[in-house]
């Protein structure tokens, strides 16, 4: 099947380096080493190809994208190519000078992550002393620069009781958007799942808090809310469908349909060092493998939601059911759906210890 529909977004994972060590990071356990990262010239070529292919927005991500010395240069290059530029950052490196340089490079938007509403807890989950205070400074700089701000809060069993305070913090920081995102269980987060999965009661309480806040803030602050798959009856449309909207480029240049796709070791992912984005998008086996509906097993193939959720998440099917071509276990129609309830049950009395995300893998936990 050959898609002529161009992709919408490019996720540029500039580096896996990050000063923070969040145990719920969805980066792969095997992080790309700094020496293998794409060069500035490589990224500029990719950005030009992205604009030519019809990509509209570029999301500079990581790791911590501000750990790359050439971030400002890349933002300027993307802006000149007509791309809408977004940075997804922890904010701890966003100094006055960096803010000013990014403004000159015509950055469109910054998403700033928080680990908690409370300073001590935020620093603990981020594994970075002084990090929360720096984030508050970063938020102030973003607002003073006149840029829109998204405050992102990742929530899990150990901080989910403070969602109301997180929303209040987002309001106080004058965010345009607030994201309350339950942890998605890939990479490091999957490794730490038992210490992070909320209970059903916690999830339902959070749903209520978010619904109330949405009504109160309607028209002023938009709240995006992402729930965990583990209590769902239907899977999420992962990345809006495989090879349908996004191209994710890893720090070393692998082109991936989603940022966790390298766990699908049966697929050979093309590198932007060897292939153009256009050829990757239209011709590569990796992007065609789960595109559309033809690859689907029963019961997805005949499901009336097949073009709504696009079969859910392939990485989750592999990680939980052991088969990337299986129905996403998040779906109640999946023969493996009981795995979700088992994971929830296993988390109930599990210890809260977390394995921090680090570049050199610690001994298997």
């Amino acid at each position, binding site marked *: 099947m050959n898609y002529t529909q161009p992709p919408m*977004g490019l996720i540029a994972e500039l580096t896996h380096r990050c000063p923070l060590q969040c145990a719920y990071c969805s980066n792969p356990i095997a992080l790309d080493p700094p020496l293998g990262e794409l060069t500035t010239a490589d990224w500029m070529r990719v950005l030009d190809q992205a604009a030519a292919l*019809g990509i509209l927005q570029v999301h500079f991500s990581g790791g911590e994208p501000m750990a790359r010395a050439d971030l400002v240069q890349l933002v300027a290059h993307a802006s000149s190519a007509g791309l*809408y530029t977004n940075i997804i950052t922890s904010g701890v490196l966003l100094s006055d000078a960096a803010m000013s340089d990014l403004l000159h490079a015509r950055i*469109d938007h910054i998403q700033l992550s928080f680990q908690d509403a409370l300073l001590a807890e935020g620093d603990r989950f981020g594994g970075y002393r002084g990090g929360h205070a720096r984030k508050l400074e970063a938020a102030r700089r973003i607002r003073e620069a006149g*840029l829109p701000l998204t405050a992102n809060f990742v929530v899990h069993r150990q901080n989910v009781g403070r969602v109301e305070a997180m929303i209040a913090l987002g309001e106080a920081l004058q965010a345009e958007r607030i994201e309350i995102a339950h942890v998605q269980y890939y990479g490091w987060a999957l490794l730490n799942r038992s210490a992070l999965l909320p209970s059903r009661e916690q999830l339902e309480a959070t749903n209520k808090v978010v619904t109330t806040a949405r009504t109160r803030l309607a028209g002023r602050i938009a709240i995006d809310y992402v729930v965990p798959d583990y209590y769902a009856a239907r899977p999420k449309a992962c990345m809006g469908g495989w090879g349908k909207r996004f191209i994710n480029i890893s720090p070393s240049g692998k082109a991936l349909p989603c940022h966790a796709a390298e766990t699908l070791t049966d697929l050979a992912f093309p590198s932007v060092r060897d292939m153009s984005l256009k050829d990757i998008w239209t011709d590569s086996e990796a992007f065609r493998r789960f595109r559309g509906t033809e690859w689907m097993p029963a019961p997805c193939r005949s499901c009336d939601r097949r073009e709504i959720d696009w079969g859910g998440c392939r990485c989750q099917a592999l990680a939980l059911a052991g088969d990337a071509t299986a129905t996403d276990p998040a779906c109640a129609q999946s023969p493996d759906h009981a795995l979700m309830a088992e994971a929830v049950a296993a988390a109930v009395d599990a210890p809260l210890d977390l394995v921090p995300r680090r570049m050199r893998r610690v001994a298997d936990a």
Partner: protein
Amino acid sequence: MIGESRVPRFRRGVRFRYDQIRRAWVLLAPEKLYMPDEVAVEILKLVDGERSIALIADDLASRFDAPRELIVRDTAAALEDLSLRGALEL
């Protein structure tokens, strides 16, 4: 329905532009992207932070064959929807 004296404006970080590759207007917002339909495109082209909903509807009524009352209602509804999504201020 919101009043027709309201003045819509794009929020910070929102760009409404023509995409040569898709040959379509696109609305780019923080981590959101909308492909407005033909009616919404005509409305959004008139959003400049100065014109009220009433003035936008007047302009549309002079060019399209529909009762002004209906145009006001459709315009207000489309703009309110985008305001709730965070793309516009009203």
